[in-house]
């Protein structure tokens, strides 16, 4: 089963050129872990970059550049392997049983708190994230529904477990969705009997409790 909702070309491009803020970067990275199709797009970007590099007219290096280069390879390497993957962060107990993609295994996930019965959030600490932005895991118990609400600023959701439906379609593991002011009558409905876990990245300051606290209400299981 692979994702059917993807980040747009513009977001993928900004990811590729390293221009995304940390929360968005983590969201795209998480989607990439779960989406071979978008990984292929990055591969095309890389191939284009390589081809363009190959056909680029060079700019002369300074006179001693080659000597310097040959001297540098004789020097011992100061650090052992620099490029090793970061050690996995300690995983909080409440994440037991969830299958997290690699991008999140090294993320610093803080303690969770309940914002409503059956709904918890766990903030993710991201170095360099703008103060106003928030990135967190959100888990919604199966059988809840989120009544109509609006969005302020851009909000990205990557589904990690479970599924929900809204006016744009059905979302499940790997799916990437973006909401903003244009989605002013948003009403996602959680589907199935598996709890929903998703990664959410908000660009603008929204105090989650103000909208989640009163918007979520349990509904009868069918």
């Amino acid at each position, binding site marked *: 089963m692979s994702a059917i909702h993807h980040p*747009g*070309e*513009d977001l993928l*491009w*900004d990811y590729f*050129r*390293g*221009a995304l803020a*940390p929360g968005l*970067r*983590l969201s795209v*990275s*998480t989607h*990439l872990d779960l989406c*071979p199709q978008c*990984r*292929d*797009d*990055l*591969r*095309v*970007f*890389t*191939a*284009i*970059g*390589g*081809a*363009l*590099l*190959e*056909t*680029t*007219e*060079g*700019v*002369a*290096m*300074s006179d001693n*550049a*080659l000597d*310097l*280069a*040959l001297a*540098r*390879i004789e020097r011992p*390497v100061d650090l052992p392997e620099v*490029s090793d*993957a*970061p050690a996995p962060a300690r995983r909080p107990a409440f994440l037991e049983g969830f299958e997290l993609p*690699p*991008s*999140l295994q*090294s*993320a610093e996930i803080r303690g969770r708190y309940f914002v409503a019965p059956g709904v918890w959030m766990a903030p993710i600490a*991201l*170095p*360099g994230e703008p103060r106003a932005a928030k990135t967190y895991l959100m888990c919604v118990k199966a059988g809840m529904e989120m009544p109509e609400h609006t969005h302020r600023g851009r909000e990205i959701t990557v589904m990690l477990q479970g599924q929900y439906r809204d006016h744009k379609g059905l979302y499940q593991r790997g799916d990437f969705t973006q909401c903003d002011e244009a989605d002013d009558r948003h009403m996602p409905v959680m589907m199935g009997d598996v709890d929903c876990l998703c990664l959410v990245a908000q660009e603008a300051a929204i105090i989650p409790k103000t909208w989640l606290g009163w918007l979520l209400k349990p509904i009868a299981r069918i």
Partner: protein
Amino acid sequence: PDSKNCAETPEALITRIAGTRDRAAYATLFTRFAPRIKAFVMGQGMTAQEAEDLAQEALLNVWRKAHMFDASKASAVTWIYSIARNLRIDAARKAKRVRELPEDLWQGDGDKAADEQIVDTQSAQIIKKMLDALPPEQKDILRLSFYEDLSQSDIAKTLSIPLGTVKSRLRLAMTRLRTAMDGKSTGVKS
């Protein structure tokens, strides 16, 4: 394949570096790629000195990581490009961090490593040929994207066309290139 230096592929040069720490091969590779990397990142806004340093660093990385390169799977040029690209992104983030968040510590944040985007040599060749054949308006988008490192909304401003047009042209170009690559792709995955 014959071993005349001028005819030697970058794949063969990197393989020799990995195998025997061949300094002559490194010198050839350096001479061939350092000026191009320098030009490439200067176009993206680096000063000549920064670009020269980055080119040095990129080739040094090629020397150190040569054993990780698999010539049977990957195109050398795209591999070198990925290394340079990652260094440039790191440099940009460091600069930004120093400007905005002097006390902030940096750590891995889940970015994909360069060698996870392996492009096989055959696909690299196809893309190179296909790039020439793209309609000029699609080529313009790619040129501004890669050489000038612009976002799509900046490209729209630069060309005075709607963002939607930029998106659809890039999508068209990507679809063509992807289809061509898929036709031949060996499906190399990390």
